[in-house]
């Protein structure tokens, strides 16, 4: 997966499974890839941004302070408090961090020269989902104790004779489906978005390389679609960052709830 159009054109056609693995940088045994660098860039940008935004706060905020406060305010008043009540305020920093990190890394998929998101590599969504998974389980266990937490999560309010049927479903749904869908949803959206933009951009070049003018002229249509789909991708980027955080908050809410 090369980042620039020229690099992509030079790649093998048809693409093989090898394309899924980005080349190692500086010959470092494959652990340092483009995705690693992008994740570092995202972390660096977010640290600098929030430090600059929260440094020397004013009653009448500067533009930067306003931006930082809106992101935090959105995570707190738009996600944490509606889902978790006043207890939710203490989760707002995590939600704000999660939201801004996913949003920025997702955004890389339509930023020139980045053009692919680390979240298009399944490892990054898995790690993010694991963090949320550990948090919601930890919070639930700390509040209810291990036995009561698992019991509340797994035993639904139903007649005893139907419980053997339902308990495995509840267990599977809460402890296995949740982290899997959380990570796969983000990964698949970013990966599919990248593929679609790739298909229409490269398709334009492939059509241009044809040997008849009426096929070559279709390449304009292909590139036009690539531009339109970039805007669609921008929508998906925002939506997936939001969905990830909202679901995390809803899982925490479920873990803290007294009864179902």
């Amino acid at each position, binding site marked *: 997966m090369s980042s620039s159009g020229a690099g992509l054109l030079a790649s093998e056609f048809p693409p093989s499974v090898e394309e899924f693995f980005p080349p190692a940088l500086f010959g470092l045994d494959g652990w340092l890839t483009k995705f690693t660098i992008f994740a570092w860039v995202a972390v660096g940008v977010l640290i600098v941004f929030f430090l600059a935004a929260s440094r020397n706060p004013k009653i009448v905020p500067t533009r930067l302070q306003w931006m930082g406060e809106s992101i935090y305010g959105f995570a707190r008043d738009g996600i944490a408090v*509606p*889902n978790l009540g006043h207890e939710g305020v203490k989760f707002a920093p995590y939600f704000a961090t999660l939201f801004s990190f996913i949003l920025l890394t997702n955004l890389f998929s339509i930023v020139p020269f980045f053009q692919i998101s680390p979240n298009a590599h399944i490892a990054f969504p898995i790690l993010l989902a694991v963090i949320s998974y550990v948090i919601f389980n930890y919070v639930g266990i700390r509040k209810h104790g291990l036995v009561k937490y698992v019991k509340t999560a797994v035993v639904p309010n139903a007649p005893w004779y139907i419980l053997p049927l*339902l308990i495995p479903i509840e267990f599977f749904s809460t402890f296995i489906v949740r982290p899997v869908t959380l990570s796969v949803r983000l990964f698949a959206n970013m990966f599919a978005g990248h593929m679609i933009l790739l298909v229409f951009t490269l398709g334009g070049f492939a059509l241009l390389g044809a040997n008849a003018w009426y096929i070559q002229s279709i390449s304009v249509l292909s590139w036009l679609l690539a531009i339109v789909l970039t805007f669609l991708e921008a929508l998906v980027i925002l939506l997936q960052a939001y969905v990830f955080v909202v679901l995390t908050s809803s899982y925490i809410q479920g873990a803290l709830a007294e009864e179902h």
Partner: protein
Amino acid sequence: MTESPQRPRDDGQDHATGSNTGWLAVSYLIAGMAVWGFVGWLIDRWLHTGGAATAVGIVIGAAGGVYLVVRRMGS
């Protein structure tokens, strides 16, 4: 945002719970079919029943999933 804490909170709540409910329902239906379908598949392997137990397991699991969805969201 500070002068009226009640209004944005209500808006957010409706929206958030709507999508949560949707994902929860999907999760139950998938989990139901996956768990009992897998149990049925194991029984198939054990008794060489050629897929019949898997089919029954998936149907039972789907029924259980639907039951849980109705139970959680109907009340």
